[in-house]
């Protein structure tokens, strides 16, 4: 716990210069998805609007965890900082937790802003479940876990490319901003196992509880991805060549 606190302080010190910029970018992106897509779909009905708003939240979390975080890890690998951190006498889990905390915290203001804009723009009628906060936390941690697994396991150049690809797929080809039935059948089925659809569903259903109640399947799938991501990250972290 002591290591966690100190590492968190160390992370904040190091990222101090970059955090405001990332925060602004991340917030703009989340808000931008809500506003931007409403230009693309001018006659958005309530359902479309709801998909776009909750999708913006999901995309915001995906950007931070699977794009920004791995890119900074890749950079750290190239500059030798990565090895430096590895030689610190702290538990590996504390190091991961301290990193994840920064990224999750970074995503929060964007979430709030996007939700606020969405409510105003689409006159959303939210029925928020107590599971909303845990759902967002799970989505955030899952994103970071997958992002870190990619960044740790792949070479820096490859990790950069993969994170771009993830963002592209999430934005255009994942049922985040639109219902899954608009996708070709095979792609929709693939998304039953990928984390994107579950992330979107978990957030969507906890913000506007459906008549059938909040489904548990997305939580299970996200937890599984989380475990896999963390396991890979931890394995690479403790691996000695």
């Amino acid at each position, binding site marked *: 716990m002591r290591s966690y606190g100190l590492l968190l302080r160390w992370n904040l010190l190091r990222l101090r*210069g970059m955090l405001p910029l990332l925060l602004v970018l991340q917030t703009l992106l989340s808000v931008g998805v809500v506003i931007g897509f409403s230009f693309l779909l001018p006659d958005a009905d309530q359902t479309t609007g709801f998909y776009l708003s909750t999708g913006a939240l999901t995309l915001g979390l995906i950007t931070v965890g699977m794009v920004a975080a791995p890119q900074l890890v890749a950079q750290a690998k190239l500059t030798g900082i990565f090895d430096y951190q590895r030689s610190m006498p702290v538990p590996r889990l504390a190091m991961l937790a301290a990193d994840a905390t920064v990224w999750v915290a970074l995503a929060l203001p964007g979430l709030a802003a996007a939700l606020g804009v969405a409510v105003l723009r689409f006159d959303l009628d939210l029925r928020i479940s107590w599971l909303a906060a845990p759902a967002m936390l799970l989505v955030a941690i899952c994103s970071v876990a997958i992002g870190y697994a990619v960044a740790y396991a792949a070479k820096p150049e490859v990790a950069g490319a993969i994170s771009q690809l993830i963002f592209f797929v999430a934005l255009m080809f994942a049922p985040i901003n639109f219902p899954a039935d608009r996708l070709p059948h095979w792609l929709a089925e693939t998304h039953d196992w990928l984390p994107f659809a579950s992330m979107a569903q978990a957030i969507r259903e906890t913000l506007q509880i459906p008549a059938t109640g909040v489904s548990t399947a997305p939580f299970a799938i996200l937890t599984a991805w989380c475990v896999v991501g963390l396991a890979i990250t931890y394995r690479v972290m403790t691996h000695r060549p």
Partner: protein
Amino acid sequence: MLLRIHQLTKDYRRGVRANDGIDLSVDEGQVLGLFGHNGAGKTTLLNQVTGLVKPTSGTIHIDGADAVADPALARRSCSLQPQAHAPLDGVTPRQAIDTMARIRGAGRRRARERTGALLDALDLGAWADEPGQKLSGGVRRLTAFCMAAAEPGRIVMLDEPTNDVDPVRRRLLWEQIAALAADGSAVLVVTHNVVEAERGVTRLAVLHHGRLVAEGTPAQLRHDYADRLRLELVAVDDETALQLAAEVTGAGAAVRTGRRVVVPIDAAAASEALTWAQRERGQGRVEEFAVTPVSIEEVYIGLVGPDPAGAEEGARVA
């Protein structure tokens, strides 16, 4: 013995043998200087002791405990100043040193005191509160040293700590290295500056192609050369230096670097050599010359040969 390394061998996947059967031990209070050309296996050795790299075979014991089996123990026991620059962007030296001391286990007050003391001792006060990206390479290097030294492990490993550092602060740095040993740490210093290190280390170890080729106190290593002197002369131009290097008769090969020629001679032949050099000087081929005892640097070059990568600097004449 605090650190005991036995038959340590490391093969990398590409088939490179970076360390080959190294036996080495360092006790608390000692400073061990680790020398060798680039790629001789020094950093690999340090990384194995810290638990970042796993040995292919051999053992490392820290205070009797198996450090290969317990990398967390290795990390707790060792503080490492890596060769790469420490991550200081956005962080001031004071913050970095203080935080690292606390991460290494120091209390709030002790961390603050040690940070202040080291910044003063290395005369870094002027930069202590400047963010890292504004600092020169030397100041960053010294900050990295302080980060390892503020709350030192029982073993302190410094990978080329004097690089980029100005001559005055180098001396201050060596004083702090000695202080770490005096306070009970075992210190390993990787450096290329043999002459400077000779004054600061208790013992020297020389690695060559992954093998330990010599180990002992500076006096022990010099022992074989006790009856040797060196004749150093500066020729009027490169061409003449080349000729002189070929003409001179010494106890070993002459090494020419630009206009400078250095040749080992037997102590008994010193007056003969002086006469020869004086005659060459009279003929206007030599600008200046000197006969001195063999330096530790020559012992080192004698052990490992001139650096192939630096061949253009030290052309060897048979």
